């Protein structure tokens, strides 16, 4: 299938209806994190889930729109990270297509790759746009590395690797369990239903 055809296959009415729900899951997941006082963000469960159920391009668009909407209603600083979320969705979708969400072990590999991609894409944004600072706690790690004489780029990359990796491993694990436990009646409606 050529790229335009594949794109068309991913953006059916059904998957377009799934996207707002996925974006809302990304945002609302934060409520549970606050209630359970967990030191992670978990803001891409919906994106990864679209990657598993529908495919890479739908997930990429979901991720990017999620950040734009997050920027609109909560924190404008989130908007530039739409690029990061785009690539997180893309990675998750491609991995799902290759079967990397079929077992729990494989979805951990996916989580690792997604975390790595996330850190690679967000580092230049943090460094060049925001002078190395984000509103999350990982900034303290960045500051510590800078204080020990490391370069800004290296410091930001290492701190986002540390914080993103744990986050994306958990995200991938949860997305795997949800996709697997969806009723067959729901899962079979999506194009990439063999993903998990």
């Amino acid at each position, binding site marked *: 299938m050529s790229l335009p055809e594949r794109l068309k296959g991913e953006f059916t*009415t059904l998957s377009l209806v799934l996207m707002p729900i996925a974006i809302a899951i990304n945002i609302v997941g934060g409520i*549970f994190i606050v209630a359970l006082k967990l030191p992670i963000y978990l803001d891409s469960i919906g994106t990864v889930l679209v990657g598993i159920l529908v495919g890479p391009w739908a997930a990429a668009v979901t991720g990017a729109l999620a950040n734009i909407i997050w920027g609109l209603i909560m924190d404008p*600083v989130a908007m530039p990270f739409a690029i990061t979320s785009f690539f997180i969705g893309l990675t998750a979708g491609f991995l799902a297509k290759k079967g990397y969400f079929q077992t729990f072990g494989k979805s951990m590999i996916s989580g690792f790759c997604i975390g790595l991609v996330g850190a690679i894409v967000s580092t230049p944004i943090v460094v060049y746009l925001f002078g190395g*600072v984000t509103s999350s706690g990982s900034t303290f790690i960045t*500051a510590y590395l800078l*204080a020990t004489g490391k370069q800004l780029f290296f410091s930001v990359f290492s701190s986002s690797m540390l914080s993103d990796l744990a986050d994306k491993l958990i995200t991938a694990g949860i997305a795997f369990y949800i996709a697997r436990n969806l009723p067959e009646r729901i899962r079979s409606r999506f194009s990439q239903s063999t993903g998990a």
Partner: protein
Amino acid sequence: MQIRQLFIEQDSYPHRLAPTTKLIGVLAVLSLAFLFPWHWTPIFLLVGLFLVAYQARVAKRFADIVFKSALPYLLMLFAMQSLFYPGGQTEIGQLGWFTIYAEGVHYATVVSLRILSMISGLVLVQLITDPAEMMTDLEQNGLSPKVSYVIIATLNILPFMLGRANAILDAQRSRGLETEGKITTRAKALLSLIGPLVVGTINDVQDRAVALELRGFSRKGSRTYLQSFGGTAKENLLRRVLWLLAALGVVGRVITWLF
């Protein structure tokens, strides 16, 4: 967690501008702030944005929101860069064990002015634009109706999902779900909270899709709009000026690269 609706309805010239004109304005602000080689451009942008907010009679709320969203971030930036800026040469003071470097303070000031302009531009355009009108105007300028559906639907769905999330939290707690204690206990609880939320809402997907299809959602051909925006000679001129300013930032950057 709070969801804010920024738009404030007023009758003013900035309010009456077409939503896309305001977006081109944001683009010009971003391009001048981040790309234009002169470091102090953002000061003029900030003054300009504030004047527009004043004219639109939203100045107080504008200043309030920008201040609140930028402050924690700016504090971190100044603390980090003035103390740990790599390659700092000129010492200008001491803070406990740390030395404050002039280069770091200068760098932090430049970056924070840019960030302030970005936040101000984005906040201002939302304060003076109805989100539904924004999507309609974007659609008329070529944005896919599907994208605008996703955005509008998300904004509509969010309050409902927040309510649902809180209900699930209460329901699971009353069944004895442990939401306190060791970190592994709390992490396990996560699955019993997110699971029901996702499965419950995905269940509605099919119904929504059918409802949209019945209303001709994926029909081919052009749409007729109830509203249209802009089109006056004055506004077209303004749009051209804003495009020019946006281009100026890029051109300025390219020139400094070349020479």
